[in-house]
Each structure stands twice: as C-alpha cells, then as structure tokens.
C-alpha cells in the first residue's frame, strides 16, 4: 500500500486537494504543499521564490552586520569615512608625490578617492562573503533557509559604509570644483556591476571555503593583489595597449573606470574595457550560482 502511494506521488505533479491548515504566517502565501524532501539530482534550479520568502531574514542578517560592526567603538560610523580617507592620503603621498603617477588630468587625491570608494566596497564585500558561510556555521547546521542568503547579506552590508564614504566624495568634488558629467546617471549601473562581481566571487569562495579552509587564509592576499591589478592607484592609460584586453578581464577595472568617468568627467572612458568586464561578470555569476547550489547540499554535513 505504501509502494502504491509512492509510485503515485512520483509520477504526478500536483497532489490532490486536501484540508490545508490555515496559514499561520500573517497571510503570506505558503510554499506549495506538500514539501517533498528527497535526494536532489542533476542541476538544482535557482529557487528565487524561496529567497523572496526569506527576504526578511536577509534584511535582519544585513542589519546585524551593520549594527555589530561599530558597537562599542568611539567614533562609530565615522570609521566608514576615516578608512578610505586615510587610504587616499597614503596613495597621494606614495603614488601621487613620490612615484609621480599621472592622474588623467585630475588632482590626484580625488582621482584616487573616486576609485578607492568602489574598491573598498568590493574588497569588503568579497572578504565578508568569502568567510560568510564558515562564520555562520552554526546557522548552517541548525536552521533551514536558502543558503544563498548568507553571501547575499555579506555583499549587501558594506553598502552602508559605501554610502557614507560617497557623501565625503561629493564634498571633495565641491572642494575641487569638479562637476559630474551625464555619465553620473550610470553610476548605479557600475555599482551594480561591482556588487555582482563581489557576489559572484563570494559565491565561489564561500562555497569552497566550507570544505577547503585554505580559501579563508588566501582571501586577504588575493584581494590585495586584485587591487594592484585594478586602476585604483593608477590610470588605465598607463597599461600598454596590447595588454588592454587582458586587463579588461578584471571586472573591477570596468567599475573603476565607470566611476571616474561618471563623477569626474574623464575625456576618454574606455568602453572596450567596460564591455569585456560586464561579460566576464555575468559568466562568473552564473557559474558561481551553479557551483554554489551544487555544493549547498553538503554544507550542513561538512562545515
């Protein structure tokens, strides 16, 4: 009798109507009952509906990160401004003064800061999301929710810091008397590109880190290298023409270029670089999602 029921449910898509208990969760639509638990096979589909259902948890995880970050500090949120400013000062002295790096006709401080801003967001987002699953290992072992939420929250939480530092950038633009160009309207697009890159990298790193903890140790080193491979301290124009395409494989190159162009009005934004970046990011993101969903099955067992 049990076998019959087994066979019947295997072949049909929808179970027959039954008295479903009234929804006890403030009227929100429940997942289709019954929820079937079984070994997953093949590629797992991206369950966007589940992520939407758990959107409040996403909010709370971001909120937690933001709240905890500056608890018990004296200057609190001011750290979000202090750190990029310090970086700008150091770069101006070392690269701008000592090494005399050109800055596309702009004052070096603001040239650097406009790139440091998105770069800081990206490096924080990658670092946090790379560690995220291991940091919240106890959640993985004891609670159910779509695991994608954890690296997503890690990529969203540095946005608050970014916004604070952005205000400072506007102040600097006023100080230097630089007006933004039409390209400033595309700024959210570039930021979105940075966010997708961070998420893509974060998905790969966090999923790998669960099983191979070397990744956690390697992340700071990789991020450091990445900064030098991006036009943060120097302009893209310094990269030789024949290497430009390879250089463009770095999505952050495109993001930084976009920020400098939109905010500071460079004459020649390198659209070739930007286009290649966008394609790379999409490829990374899709492959990252696939990899993450594959590895997701064993997170609770391996972490």
């Amino acid at each position: 009798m049990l076998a019959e029921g087994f066979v019947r449910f295997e072949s049909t898509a929808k179970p027959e109507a039954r008295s479903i208990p009234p929804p006890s969760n403030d009227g929100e639509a429940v997942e289709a009952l019954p929820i079937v638990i079984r070994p997953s096979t093949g590629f797992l589909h991206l369950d966007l509906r589940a992520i939407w259902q758990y959107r409040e948890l996403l909010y709370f995880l971001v909120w937690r990160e933001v709240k905890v970050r500056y608890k018990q500090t004296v200057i609190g949120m001011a750290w979000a401004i202090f750190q990029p400013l310090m970086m700008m000062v150091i770069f101006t002295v070392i690269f701008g003064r000592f090494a005399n790096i050109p800055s596309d006709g702009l004052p070096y401080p603001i040239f650097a800061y406009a790139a440091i801003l998105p770069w800081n967001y990206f490096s924080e987002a990658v670092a946090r999301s790379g560690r995220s699953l291991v940091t919240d290992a106890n959640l993985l072992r004891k609670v159910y929710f779509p695991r994608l939420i954890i690296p997503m929250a890690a990529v969203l939480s540095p946005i608050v810091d970014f916004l604070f530092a952005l205000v400072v950038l506007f102040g600097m633009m006023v100080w230097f008397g630089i007006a933004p160009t039409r390209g400033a309207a595309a700024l959210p697009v570039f930021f979105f590109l940075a966010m997708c890159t961070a998420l893509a990298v974060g998905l790969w790193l966090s999923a790998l880190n669960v099983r191979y903890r070397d990744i956690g140790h390697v992340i700071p080193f990789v991020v450091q290298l990445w900064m030098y491979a991006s036009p943060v301290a120097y302009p893209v124009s310094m990269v030789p023409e024949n290497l430009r395409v390879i250089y463009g494989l770095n999505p952050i190159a495109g993001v930084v270029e976009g920020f400098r162009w939109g905010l500071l009005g460079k004459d020649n934004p390198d659209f070739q670089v930007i286009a290649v970046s966008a394609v790379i990011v999409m490829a990374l993101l899709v492959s990252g999602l696939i990899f993450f969903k594959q590895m997701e099955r064993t997170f609770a067992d391996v972490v």
Partner: protein
Amino acid sequence: MSDLAIRAVQLSKQYRIGAAKYRHNTLRDQLADGVKSLFRLRNRRKRDKNTIWALKDVSFEVKQGEVLGIIGLNGAGKSTLLKLLSRITEPTEGRAEIYGRVGSLLEVGTGFSFELTGRENIYLNGAILGMKKAEIERKFGEIVEFSELEKFIETPLKHYSSGMYVRLAFAVAAHLDPDILLIDEVLSVGDLSFQRKCMQHAKRLQKRNATVLVVSHNMFSIKALCERVIYLSQGRIRVDGSPAEAIELYERESRLHIAPWAQRVVGGEQDRQGIYVTDMQLLDESGHRRSVFDYGDRMRVRIRFNAVEKILSPNFNVSFIRSDNVACCNYNTAMDGVTISCVFGEGSIELLTPPLKLTAELYTAHVMVWDDKYERLYSAQVGDTFHVRHDVLNTHFGVFHESAEWLGVPDGDKASRMKMSGGVER
C-alpha cells in the same frame, strides 16, 4: 490522508566518517574533482568503505496534532532525522512529505549575537527561526514577559548569565507558532523551575493541535508529553508504538551503555578499555531488587565486571545522577580505604551505602572504573534508575538532607511562662 502532517518513506542518510574524507594527491586533483562534481549526476559515495548509515529505511507517518517522541542512544540517528525533516541536510535515499509549516528547535539561541542587546536578539533570533517581523513585533511583549528579563532587555547579550541566555532563547522559541514543531532536547537545558516552564509550554502546544516531534534522553519528559514513541537504534526504527512499549525496550537494550560524557575518553560500544561492567543491580539492605527506596534506606549495589586485561589498582565508583543531569553523590573504593591490587577476568564487588540522604526524586546510578589516582578512566556506564521517596523532602530542599545538631535552642517552657505572667521573669 487528509489529516497527515508528515510522511517519511525509507529515509536514509549516509555519512562519510574519519579524517580521510577526500584524499587527493595534488591541488590539481582537487580542482579537477571539484569541476567534475559540477557535472556528476549520480551519487558515487555509496561505494566507499569509510561510510556509515546514520539512518536507514526509516518510514513512518504522523497525523496532525500528534505528539511523537523519538528516543535512542547517542548516535542512533535522532538528530539526523530531525535535520532531514528540517531540510538542513538532504537524505541519501528515500523521501519525506511535509504538510504544513515547519519550525525547528534544534538548539536554543541559534544566531544570537553577543554584541547586540536582548531586544535586538529577539528580533534576530525570531527571524532566523522563521518568524516574520510583524509577528515578532506583535509577540514582543509576551516574549519579554515569558523570559522574565524585562530589566535586562536593553543590555548586550554578552553580559547575560548562562541562565538568562537560555531563558531569552527559549522565550523566543516558545512563541514560534508553526504547524509542525521539531524539538531536539532543548527541554533538557536549564534549571529545574525553567524545565517545568518548558513542560507547561509543551502541554500548551498540545492543546493548540500542533504536531510535535520531540527528541529527548529524558524518559520522564517523554512519558509526560508523548502519545506515541519511536525508538531508534543504529539508524533504524526498533519500535514505533506506545511510550511504555518503546521506553521499556529502550531501557532494556541500553542497560549499562557507555555514558555519553565518557564516550570520547572510553570509546563507543565497540571498543571497551580493559575492564567493563557486565551487570549492576540495585537492591535493598536485605538483598531484594528494588527501584523505589525510602529516604534513609541503605542500598546495595551489586556489580559484576569483566577485566579482559590485567588492571592494577582499580577504583570502583558509583555515582547517583538526578533526572535533570545533576550529579548528586559519589561512592568510591579509593576514598573508602579499600585497596584492590589488581583484577583480571570476571569478578564482582558490592557497595553498601550508608542511609540515603537524597531528597525525593528520580535518580540514575552510574558506575565507573578509574585507577586509584583518578588519572585514567577505564569505563563509565549508565545503570538503572531508582526513586527516592519521602513525604516532605522534595528537591526544593536541595540535593540532600541530613540530621544535624542544634545548639542554644530557646527554652519553650520559659517563654510560655513569661507570656502568662505578663512580665519579665528574673
């Protein structure tokens, strides 16, 4: 079919054990395997030797509103079953169908952040458990009241004592209102009065017609709460029936099993170290087997053991552990001046306790074999349970009670004479 809450069909979960999980020679192998696994459709793990089945062919149905208990020794697969039903891990084989919203309490205080305040943690923990923000806001007052922590709700969690932590965690968990609730031994945390509160709450859940699955080692709670019990042993269902039936078989089969706290030192069932206890009986002074003793009775504990190796200077210990896991008293040969130079092969020893001073409660006798310097533990096994009976002395009086001397006792006759004469007597 229409009032089903859970249906499990041949649920099975296989785990890889040991450190040699993924043996690769080079990083290249590791990467190659990782890429291959993206495209691997069938699970090849079943052919490996270093695997165990934590659950095998577990099938059962639970109706809405039923309270089901799940018992078994450590490692029997109870927590694995709850994890599968909570979708935290996936089954290797088999399937389960869930009809309703599931809330899992596998741990209290999951996701608590020590830097945040009690209030903030209520929101965080509630969200993690699956409650919506609106729901948490609505129940916030009740949660704080239940936890009895009104004064401390704005203090960061890192300043809480462990008792307060548990109370807050449980207060949030208690207001989780799912159709199906899965509880993993969270009832056994906390002090006695708190446990009583948990019990009351569990009874309230019953009234609300929620379906509840409880995993516990505490047979007392299981008997009080559950109408039906599943006894799991080594990943398989041994009994699925009335609590009395399941608990009886469980207690019979788990006689003298290795105590959970000692498993890391002494080993699991299979690898015993040198000496182990084969039988332990609780008797009254005249030698009759009993499970209920009166306060003040003397108890005989008859121990039979088998020393497969020659053991020098063994130290036999008998401890009484209360039903809430508090160790109450201990008797041992070393401190009683009993020297045993060595043991080998089968043997026996008997303990005759002084009159019992324990307050009225349920206790379990544990027997341990140490060396006489308490440096090496050979075996630690869980024996029978027994009740201590007394009309007045319950656990509110403490762990034990004994008679003592009182000095400077006020003279009752003198006091009543003073009252009658209305003045001070000289």
